[in-house]
C-alpha cells in the first residue's frame, strides 16, 4: 500500500482563465488494483479507479456491492488487502458517510463549530467560512435549529457543509442523496458540482444510474468487482449489437389515449418470449430488447442506447458468465 504524500503542486487548473480565484491544484487521487477482504469475504476485488481533482466520479452499485467499502478505503478508514490507494493527508479529505455523520442533538452552528474545531479552524476564520457555507447551502435561517429537526435534504446539505468546511482536496460522498427529494437533490448536486468546479476531486456513491450519468466518470460495481467503467458516453458507445423497443400488446397507451386496458393475461409473452429475446426488460409500456447480433426482434423499433441499457446488458452477461 502506498499513500501519496499530500501533493501541493500549484498549477492553473484547466479553467484558470476565469475570474474565480477558487481554483486549486487538481490532485490525481484514486485506487489501483484495490482488494479488500472482510475476514475471508472479499468486499472489493482488484478495483482501479481514478478520482481526479476538478471532476465528479460516480460509483454505482446496490447495497453490498462494495461502493461503501471503496469510499471508506479511499478515505483511509480501511486497510487494503492488496493494491494501493492514492489520497491526500486525511485532514485534506472531506467525507460524508451514508449515515451522514451529523449530530442530531446539536444545532447547525454547533455541528459546524465542532467539525471546524476538529480540523483546526477557529475564531473569525471559522465563523466566516461557516457563514459562507450556510449561505451557499441556504441554511442560514436554520443555523440555530437542532440538526435532528431538519428535513432529510437540509441535513444532507449540512453534512456537505461540514465535509467541505476545511476546503478538502478530496471529497468523498457515500450516498449523499438517499432519501433526499428531487428539489433538495438538485441543490445538493449544484453544491457538489461547485466543489468540483473549484478543483476538488469528488467521489460520489449512488445506487441510481440517472444520478451517475451526471458524473464525468462512472464505475459500476457488482459484488465487489468492476462491471463497467469509464466515461458514460464511452460506456454507451462500447455496447455492441443494437437496442430495440417493442410495445407491449394490450398495454394501455402511455399517452393516456383510449387503449385496450383489459389486457389478456400473458399478452406480453405472446409478443416476445425468452427464446426469441433473452436480453429484454421492461421500461414503461415497452419492452427494451438488446440484440447482440443487431437483428431486430419482431415488432421492434430501433432505440438509442443509454447508460441504463448498457449496465443491464453487462449485468446479464456477467450473470451468464458466472452460470
Amino acid at each position, binding site marked *: 500500500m502506498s499513500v501519496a504524500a499530500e501533493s501541493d503542486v500549484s498549477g492553473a487548473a484547466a479553467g484558470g482563465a476565469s475570474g474565480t480565484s477558487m481554483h486549486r491544484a487538481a490532485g490525481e487521487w484514486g485506487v489501483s488494483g484495490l482488494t479488500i477482504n472482510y475476514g475471508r469475504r472479499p468486499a472489493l476485488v482488484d478495483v482501479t479507479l481514478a478520482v481526479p481533482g476538478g471532476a465528479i466520479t460516480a460509483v454505482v452499485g446496490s447495497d453490498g456491492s462494495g461502493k461503501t467499502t471503496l469510499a471508506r478505503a479511499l478515505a483511509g478508514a480501511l486497510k487494503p488487502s492488496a493494491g494501493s490507494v492514492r489520497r491526500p493527508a486525511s485532514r485534506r479529505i472531506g467525507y460524508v458517510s451514508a449515515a451522514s455523520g451529523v449530530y442530531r442533538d446539536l444545532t447547525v452552528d454547533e455541528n459546524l463549530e465542532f467539525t471546524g474545531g476538529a480540523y483546526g479552524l477557529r475564531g473569525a476564520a471559522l465563523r466566516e467560512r461557516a457563514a459562507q457555507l450556510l449561505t451557499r447551502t441556504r441554511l442560514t435561517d436554520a443555523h440555530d435549529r437542532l440538526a435532528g429537526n431538519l428535513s432529510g435534504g437540509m441535513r444532507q446539505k449540512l453534512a456537505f457543509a461540514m465535509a467541505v468546511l476545511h476546503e478538502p482536496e478530496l471529497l468523498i460522498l457515500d450516498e449523499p442523496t438517499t432519501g433526499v427529494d428531487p428539489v433538495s437533490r438538485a441543490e445538493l448536486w449544484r453544491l457538489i458540482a461547485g466543489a468540483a468546479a473549484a478543483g476538488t476531486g469528488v467521489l460520489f456513491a449512488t445506487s441510481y444510474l*440517472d444520478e451517475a450519468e451526471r458524473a464525468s466518470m462512472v464505475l459500476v460495481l457488482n459484488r465487489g468487482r468492476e462491471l463497467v467503467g469509464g466515461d458514460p458516453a464511452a460506456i454507451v458507445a462500447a455496447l455492441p449489437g443494437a437496442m430495440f423497443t417493442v410495445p407491449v400488446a394490450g398495454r394501455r397507451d402511455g399517452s393516456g389515449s383510449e387503449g385496450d386496458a383489459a389486457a389478456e393475461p400473458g399478452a406480453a409473452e405472446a409478443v416476445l418470449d425468452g427464446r426469441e429475446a433473452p436480453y429484454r426488460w421492461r421500461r414503461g409500456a415497452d419492452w427494451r430488447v438488446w440484440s447482440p447480433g443487431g437483428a431486430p426482434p419482431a415488432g421492434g423499433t430501433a432505440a438509442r442506447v443509454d447508460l441504463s441499457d448498457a449496465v443491464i446488458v453487462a449485468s446479464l452477461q456477467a450473470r451468464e458468465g458466472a452460470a
Partner: protein
Amino acid sequence: MTQSGEMPANGGGASRPASPAPPLVAVRAVTRRFGDFVAVDAADLTVGPGEVVGLLGANGAGKTTLIRLILGLLRPGNGRVRLFGEPPSRRTRRRLGYVPQGLGLWEDLTVTENLEFSADAFAVAAHSTRADAPAATRSARADASAADATARAYGGAEPLDADLRAARDQLVRDLPLGLRRRLAFAAALAHHPDLLVLDEPTSGVDPLARARLWDTIHATVEDGAGALVTTHYMDEAEQCDRLVVMAQGVVIAQGTMRAIIGAATAVEVEADHWEAAFAALDAAGLPLALAGRLLRVPGGDQARVRAALATGAVAARIRIVPATFEETFVTLATARQENS
C-alpha cells in the same frame, strides 16, 4: 400537462366503456390537516386497472399522507377516498398489496415463514369475509390456501425466483437487500391483489435487479391490477404510465411524463472549461446542473445565460434542449414554494 379537474365518478375506468367497474383508487378533493398544517390539500388521484401511476413530490409534499389515506391508515378530513368503489376498510385491504419503503418483512422469520404469514393473513380474511365480499373477480383467487399461495410465490415464471427458493430457510435479516425486496414483492403479490401500493420499490438495488422488479410490476399490472408507486428517482418515474406531482399538499401536475414536460426547455452550455462556465452561471444565481461535462440551466432563458457567460468572460456554445422530467419537476415544485 393535464391538470386534475372534476371527473366523473368512474373517472379512471372511463377508458373502459364496456366495463362499469369503478377505478381502483379514486381520491376526490381530499384534504387532511394535522393541527394547522395542511398535509394534503384538495387532492385528486385516480388509479385504474392496467396502469402504473407514479406519485412524486418533495419531502413534506403530502405523498406519505396521501398514501396512508389510500391504505386506510388515516381518514380524510374532507373529500372522499374510494378503493374499488368503497371506503377503505378491512374488505378493501384484502385486495391490496403493499410494499413499504422499509419492506415490512419480519427479519427474524425465514423466507418461507414470511410468505406463509402473509398468505395466512390474506387467506384467513378471505374465509371470514367471503359471505359479505363483493363478487370481485380477481380477489376470488385469494381464497386459496396458504400452502397454495406460498407455492405460487415460488412458482412464478420469473427466472430470478430460483434465488428466493434457494434461500427459503434463511432468516430475512441474513439476506442481501435485493433478495429482501424480491421477497417483499412475492409476499405482497401472493394473494393476487387488485392494487399494488409501492413506496420507493427499488431503492438500494442494482440496475438489473431494478429492471427485474419492474418486469414483475408490469406483469402484475398487465394481469389487470393497478399500481401506485412513490419515488424520488427518474429511473423509476419513467416506468410509470402516468405521474402525479405534489407540492405542499397540492397536486400540481398530472399526466404522462411527456405531457408534464410539455414544452419546457433547458439551456445546455458546452464550454471548453466547464468549471469556468459553472462559476459564471453560479455567480449569476441561475438554476444550474452538471451533466457529465455539460451544464444545464433548466427553464433558463438564453439571454440571461449569455449575459452571465459574458460577465465571466467564458467562451461557450449554448443551445436550447427539451427539459428533462426531473428539471421540469424541480422547476414546478420550486415555483410553487416561491409563490406561497
